[in-house]
């Protein structure tokens, strides 16, 4: 298996799907400009600027247009630049795309993918650093994929593009440079299937997106103290593989749920609630959570690091669970 970057995996998935299906096209701000959009610009050379289509800065307009094109038989892949900008386009994302099939009695489908780069750690401040997957996961009719490595990025994006429903596809910017082995050929990763990224027996670390590599680092640090941590990644949070996560947490009896989004109303709240319902008797200790503190993400690096989760915070939470009296 060749090692490629997470960012290259995205481009590969787009290229292969555009080759496979002429109805697939890419649209967004600056998508064909190499210096600004290296992930998609090379596709413009190959497929032309009608299929890799630059838009004006009109998030509401072009997102609604993508919904319309999807209703009319195309498979648009929208590049949202940053998840923060989806909030300018929340009507088509929350009111239209996920509800049209339902509201119109099954007369249409909306095969739309919205790629949303997101996350902090780059000193971009409160409106350019958010992680909003928990917003989208509570909208019936939307699917939400949160890949954490190159192989899943490619495989989940292929599945997203082939899905006949709207999919929010989050891409943590901190993951773009990370390399990993990616299977050759046409390998799609199914939605709703968690992946064990490291096996262990003492505690389960459930990581979402950018926090999976951090959970791996924390597991490494815990191993130095003789603690065996399992790391599991839900990969999609809608649908959520409660069964897969419960199998891991039930096995170890201890669990930390980690996400980069804010603690209050986060993905971890949903996962913890789902797990306690099926594991009440077999959990040895309460479920711990690590997430961004309930503050906007500040620009100044020390303050930003204070707000965001980290390997140290994950390891500390694991030790609380392990030492629970």
């Amino acid at each position, binding site marked *: 298996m060749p090692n490629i970057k997470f960012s290259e995996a995205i481009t590969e998935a787009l290229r292969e799907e555009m080759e496979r299906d002429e109805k697939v096209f890419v649209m967004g701000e600056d998508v064909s400009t190499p210096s600004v959009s290296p992930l998609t610009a090379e596709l413009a050379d190959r497929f032309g600027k009608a299929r890799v289509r630059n838009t004006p800065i009109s998030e509401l307009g072009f997102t609604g247009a993508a919904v319309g094109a999807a209703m009319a*038989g195309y498979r*648009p892949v929208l590049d949202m630049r940053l998840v923060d900008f989806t909030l300018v386009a929340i009507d088509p994302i929350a009111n239209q795309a996920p509800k049209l099939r339902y509201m*119109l009695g099954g007369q249409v489908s909306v095969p739309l993918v919205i790629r949303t780069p997101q996350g902090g750690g780059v000193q971009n401040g409160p409106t350019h650093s958010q992680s909003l997957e928990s917003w989208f996961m509570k909208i019936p009719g939307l699917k939400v994929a949160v890949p954490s490595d190159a192989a899943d990025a490619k495989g989940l994006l292929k599945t997203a593009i082939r899905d006949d429903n709207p999919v929010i596809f989050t891409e943590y910017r901190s993951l773009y440079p990370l390399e990993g082995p990616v299977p050759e050929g046409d390998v799609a990763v199914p939605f709703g299937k968690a992946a064990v990224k490291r096996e262990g027996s003492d505690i389960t670390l459930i990581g979402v997106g950018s926090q999976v590599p951090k959970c791996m680092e924390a597991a490494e640090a815990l191993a130095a103290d003789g603690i065996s941590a399992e790391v599991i990644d839900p990969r999609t949070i809608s649908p959520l593989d409660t069964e897969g996560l419960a199998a891991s947490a039930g096995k170890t009896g201890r669990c930390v749920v980690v996400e980069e989004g804010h603690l209050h109303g986060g993905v971890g709240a949903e996962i913890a609630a789902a797990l306690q319902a099926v594991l009440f008797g077999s959990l040895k200790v309460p479920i711990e959570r690590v997430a961004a503190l309930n503050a906007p993400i500040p620009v100044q690096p020390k303050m930003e690091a204070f707000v965001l989760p980290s390997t140290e915070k994950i390891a500390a939470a694991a030790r609380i669970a392990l030492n629970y009296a």
Partner: protein
Amino acid sequence: MPDSKGVFMREKLGEMYRTMVRIRRFEETAQELFEKGGIIRGGIHVSAGQEACSVGVCSALNDDDAILTTHRGHGHSIAKGTRLPEMMAELFGKTAGLCHAKGGSMHIADVSKGHYGAHSIVGSNMPMAAGIGLAFQLNGRGQVAVPFFGDGASNQGAFHESMNLCAIWKLPVVFFCENNHFASSTRAEYSTSVEDISTRAQGYGAPGVTVDGMDVLAVHEAVAEAVKRARAGEGPSLIEAKTYRYYGHSRLDKKFGSYRDEEEWNEWKARDPLTVAGRLFGLSEAEAEGHRAAVEKELAEAVAFAEASPEPEPEMALEDIFA
């Protein structure tokens, strides 16, 4: 004795008139049933008074052209050929409804007739119409998309962003604004920076024209011209039709409300679109009566169909969430 074209024209005009009657009587019937209580739940927004807009637009379109309408969309739906019985069943909340009783009055759609839905968030249909226009441009089959919207929606960002998108990409979209002078209760002269909304087209380098929305032929001609332009790849147009709704905004709003008076209402009613059409088409009273009688029969059948259709089981609420 008229030549073949004359015969065709008379048939077409007769059908247009009948469709206007069909819309008027559908709306009156729906409003009556709504006011009875317990039959049509939620709310409805009826379009009586605006028939010339619905019919003027849709008579200039082909079956495979698209419309996207609004919360006040019954008339547009009927003009595009939406099936009355299934539409009435949707208002009744029955399983035979076009949306399986999950969308209701504000989401009537009949995609088989090129009707891509009523969309109840004001202005939301315009970006989607731009996208359908984009699909039509990519398909290359010469189809056109028409979003209907009101004076109120012309103040939404969605309108402006969509006009710009369609203009830069020369998309085959005809923006059709029914200026009925009220956004719910707010008068257009208060809420809107220009007297003629069609002048907003200038900001997007597109043609804009204002027509008499009570005159079905004036609407038809303006739309036919814009459709021709769109099919030729010359991009979007904006048509504003000045019109008037006879009923209140929706369920709680009285006919005259506190924001308009009977005198104004009577002035518009004096130019009723059905009367105007009857005169323009040179219809005899017997012909008009023939259309009215045929429509009464259709409506009675639609109501009977809706009554006979079963109510959905609660669990059907979980169907059609995903494809």
